[in-house]
Every structure is written in C-alpha cells, then in structure tokens.
C-alpha cells in the first residue's frame, strides 16, 4: 500500500487541526476566579470544637434529613460514618497518640467549583452569596459532580429509584430569616463554627492566627487552596491529618477548562474542521468522478 504524498498531506492538514487545537491552548491560561463580592462562608476552628455534634443534629433538622441508623452495630443511633445521602454535615475525629482533633466537614463552597464545571445542564450553580446550589429538576443523575469534587462532598441517593444529589447548600432555604445563618453555625455552643461574610471571616481567622501563632498551624485552609473556598479552617494539627490532602493553589477545573475553551473557543475550530472535511470530500468525489477510483488498487 502506498499513500501518495498529496492525499497524505491533504488528510494530515485536516486531521491535525484537532491536534493543534487540543495541544496549544494549554499555554493560554484561563483567568482565575475571585471570591464574589457578596460571598458568605463559615470559619471552623478545631481548637474550639468539643465534638458535641450539636451541628450534625441541627443540620438534619433544618434540612429534613433522616437519621442514619444503617451503621452495623449502631442501629439505635443516628451514626453516619461519613457524609452521605442522609448527612450534609458531619463531625469526624482524628486521633493519633496524644494528638487528637475534631473536624467538621460539609461543602466548602469553592470559589471555582469543580461540580459546577462538571454539571451538564447547570443543576449545580454558584448562586447568590457564592453558595453552590443543586437543582433537582435539572439533574440527570450522571454523578460527574462526584467524580469532580476534590473534597468528596456531593453524595448520591444510591438506594432511591429517583435519586437526588445531597450536599450542604448553606441552609439557603432559611434565607430571609431575621438572623439568617446555617443551622450548624447557629447552634454551635462554642462558636467553633461561625457564619458571616467571607471578608469578616477571613479577617477574624487572620486575627486569631496572629494572636496565637503557637496554637495553630500557620495557615488558613481555604484561603488559597484549590483556588480558594468560602469555608475557612483553622487547625492545631496539620491539615493533611484532617483529610485536607490538597494544598495546590490551582483550581481543580483550570487545566480541563483551559483545554476545552482552547478547542471550542467560539466554536471556530470545529466549524473550520467541518468545512475543511467537506472541501476535501467534495474534491475527492469530483476527482473520482473524473478519473475513477484513485490509488493503486
């Protein structure tokens, strides 16, 4: 078999359009997102948390979530082992020798959320106050959000025949209440978790860190990590021990969206490729008509 050079080049030209498109945009960086002006968030401080789980209880009540009695041997307790389809907020314990710490987990309300980037028809959106919301009517149940979220927050109702995604939405149903704050923050007896505007909370976290540098790890988790989150953490044990494994400042969707935007910018590359293919096909057909099947058969 021999490809004659002309047809090879011709084909290569069209085929490589896609190749160039998918490789080149990696250099053209996508703009970093900033915290929205009206952003609200939470500040959690491990040194204050006593692990009473009042927040877990309050969250279930505020969000109408059933008790999780599925844990083997714990059937008489509401004892979820992790965030799950019954649990949008949880207190976990880290313990290693003398060192121990509680840690509260819930949606981090990312500045540049991977779940929102994943969701096909916008069931996940970053809405007012920078809160990430989920819309039942738009969800197909594809679970790409679960594959994308670096914190493993969205949970799926695996046992349901019409499954929802379950995740903390900052008690947005209570918005408009006189003193609106998420149930977990409202109920915390030690103010280990507090709600407020992002600005207030960041200032408060910085103040605590400056006042007691001996008490904390020298870092506010969420200030910059993975592009920043509206929920901020102060801790007396390394954040990695609490399950915060990633401290890169690169937002999760950055690489993928840089590539996708590069390829599909204004839909020019696909349109050009389509036109190019059409031209090649048309010329090939005309040539065939004129001189019969080309190439050495």
């Amino acid at each position, binding site marked *: 078999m021999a*490809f004659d050079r002309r*047809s*090879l080049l*011709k*084909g290569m030209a*069209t*085929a490589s359009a*896609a*190749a160039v498109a*998918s*490789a080149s945009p990696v250099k053209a960086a996508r703009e970093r997102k900033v915290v929205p002006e009206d952003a609200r968030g939470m500040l959690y401080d491990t040194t204050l948390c006593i692990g009473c789980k009042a927040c877990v209880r309050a969250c279930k009540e505020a969000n109408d979530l059933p008790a999780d009695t599925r844990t083997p041997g714990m059937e008489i307790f509401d004892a979820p082992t*992790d965030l*799950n389809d019954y649990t949008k907020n949880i207190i976990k314990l880290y313990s290693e020798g003398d060192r121990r710490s509680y840690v509260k987990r819930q949606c981090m309300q990312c500045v540049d959320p*991977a779940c*929102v980037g*994943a969701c*096909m*028809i*916008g069931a996940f959106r970053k809405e007012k106050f920078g809160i990430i919301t989920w819309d039942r009517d*738009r969800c*197909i*149940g*594809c*679970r*790409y959000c*679960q*594959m994308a979220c*670096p914190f*493993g927050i969205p*949970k*799926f109702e*695996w*046992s*349901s025949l*019409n*499954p929802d995604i379950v995740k903390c939405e900052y008690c947005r149903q209570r918005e408009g209440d006189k003193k609106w704050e998420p149930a977990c923050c409202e109920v915390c007896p030690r103010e280990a978790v507090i709600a407020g505007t992002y600005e207030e909370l960041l200032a408060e976290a910085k103040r605590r860190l400056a006042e007691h540098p001996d008490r904390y790890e020298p870092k506010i988790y969420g200030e910059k990590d*993975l592009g920043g989150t509206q929920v901020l953490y102060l801790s007396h044990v390394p954040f990695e021990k609490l399950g915060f*494994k990633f401290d*890169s400042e*690169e937002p999760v*969707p950055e690489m*993928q969206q*840089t*590539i*996708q*935007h590069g*390829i*599909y910018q204004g839909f020019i590359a*696909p349109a050009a*490729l*389509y036109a190019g*293919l*059409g031209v090649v*096909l*048309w010329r*090939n*057909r005309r040539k*065939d008509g004129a001189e019969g*099947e080309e*190439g050495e058969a």
Partner: protein
Amino acid sequence: MSDRAEAVGGPILTKATRWILWIGIVGIALILWRFGVGLGRSTGLNDGYAWGLWISFDVVTGTALGCGGFAMALLVYIFNKGKYHPLVRPAILTSALGYSMAGLAIAIDVGRPWHVWRIPLGGFPDMGKYNWNSALLEVALCVMAYIIVLWIELSPAFFEKWKDSPKEGLANFSRKAYGIVNKSLIWIIALGVLLPTMHQSSLGALMLLSGPRLHNLWNSPFAPLLFLISCIAMGYAVVVMESALASRFFNRPSHTSMLASIGKVAAYIIWGYLVLRLVDLVLRGRLGLMFQFNVYSLMFWIEIICFAVPAVMLMNAKKRQDLGYLFRAAMMLVLAGTLYRFDTYLVAFMPGENFSYFPTVPEIFVTIGIVAIEIMLYVALVTIFPILAGRPTTAEAH
C-alpha cells in the same frame, strides 16, 4: 472476487447465536432489575467510585471500539483510498451498534434517565442554562448526534434491500430516501468524522476534572489527543477483527491484504501515540512516576507493553499477511486501548482509602449482555441486509 455488498442470507438463529441470544436476554432482565432496585443494590458503585464498569467499559471503551466507522471514513473518504471501500459498510455497522449500545449503557447508568431529554433540549424551558464548560455535555450531545449520523450512513444498506420490496410504499420511500442520502452524503460523512474527533477527545478531557485525585501518569493535558489517537488505532483493530471473524463465520472472502495495510496504518498511529505519551511525561517532569514500584506504575507498564507489542508486530510486512497473526495483533491493540481507558477512569482515580470498587456479578452480566445484544443485532443485520462484501466462498478447511 466480487466486492459488492450482499446479504448473507440463511437463518439468524443457529446453535451459536441461540446461546448469545440467551446471554442478551439475561442482560435485559438484569437491566430491568436494576431499575427495580436502584443503583446501590445492583452495582458496586458508591460515593467514592461514582463511575464504574458501565462508564469505563460500555461507554468510554465501547465508543472507542465503535470507532471503526470513523477510522475507515478517514482512510477511504479523507485520504481517498477507495480500494478499502468494501470494508466501510461493515465498519459503519459495528460503529452504529457500538455507539447505540453505549447510549443504552448511559441510560442504565444515570440515576434519572427520564431526564435525559433535557440534554438535547438544554433543560427546557431555560434553554440558556447549558453549561458549555462541561466536557460531559459536549460528549453527550456529540454521541447523541453521532448515533443518528451512523444510522444515516448505514441507511443505504437498508434502502438497497427495501427498494425491491413488494410493498410499493416502502419501495418508493426507499428509492427517494436513497437519493436524498446519496446527495447529502459528503456532509453526512464530514459530520461522521467531525463528531467522533470532538467527543473522543472530550472523553480524554473528562477525567481531567478529577484534578488532584487523578494519578499523574494519566492526568495529562495531552489526554484529549491521546484518547483521539488511540481510538482511531482501536477503530482499525476492530475492523481487522470484525472482518476476520465475519469471513470465517459467514464464509466470505477474507480481505487479508487490505487488512494488512490497515494494520500497518494502525502500527504507525500507535507509534505516534507511544511517542506522545513519553513526550508528555517528559514535558510534565513526571517520568519518575514510571519507576515507582506501585500499582500505578505497574498498570502503566502493562498498558504501554500492550500498545508496544502490536506496534512491533504490525510493522512486520511479511507476517502481517497472515490473517491469524493480524488478528492477534489487533486483539492486543484493542486490549491496550481498553486498558488505557480503564486506567484513566478507574485505576488512576483516587477517591480516598475509604472507598473501594469492584463490579457486582449483575453489573458484569449487564455488560456482557449488552455485548451479546450487539452481536445478535450484527448477525441479524448482515443476514438480512447487504452489508458484507462479496459472495460466500466455498467452505475452506480451517
């Protein structure tokens, strides 16, 4: 040797296909059961591994195996190698079936398949709410469109049969439709090349959104290009396998010299893939990850070797004239591409130590059942419609 496509004829149900039919029926029963009990009970999926066998095999690998039509269209229509024309129609058929079954698998895998109509309609009534950032949206739209394109590309095979139908209405319709399809064929074929170029590369981009939870041997900005290149090679491999099997089971002439040439094309493509894979690791400074002795480097090497073996095998101009040799190389290449996709979607994905995934028996049987349905439909369609090229040869001794 005649290269005109002709229906195979004869009975669809034989001893062998009856077995395959039963496997397909078991699969369908299990699919119904999945909708009765939910995904939690029927699959091994969990909040960590939200995607499992059905996505990595049926959808991601299944569509790549369905790239025979795409790969042959590139060769025959874009590179204008008309002599391979007899291989096009069966390739389009395997693609149409592969993609349709992948579509079925998606419908089984998602939690609310009755909302799927929202994808083409953008979540009607708020049409503007498409998330154009989503690689999955791009894949979903392209795959939906491509399934339609593939069946249109195949439709001349149906019309050729129906235009001689005794039913006058059907015959008239077929003659008219045949003309319309034939006239617009250029733009349909162009779509048939454009759409897989788009969504096969997007399938590579999909998992990049797992970001830090995707192992760095696979978390590459070149993944879209690697997926695209490898799916074309897999397409050729599938054409080789399909053609070899069809010639054996339906006593058709085997187009061995043609298949050997295609094998050579595939070999060049794999070499390109392997070079790019290496260049990528060098550019990202991740070469060292290959030599950490863990499950990831092990899987990486198995994958690379599975690509390299057919790449070397298919370069041998003499040996690849042997259909059996060609078949083995193609099978290896299909395995390599499958591994690359499993590695990207399952092995390299690290949701945390608390989670593990292994498909359940019903999950596996759904996958096997879907493949069985695919084979049944292939047999039925080539029996009834003019798809395979050439008349039966006299039975050869094997």
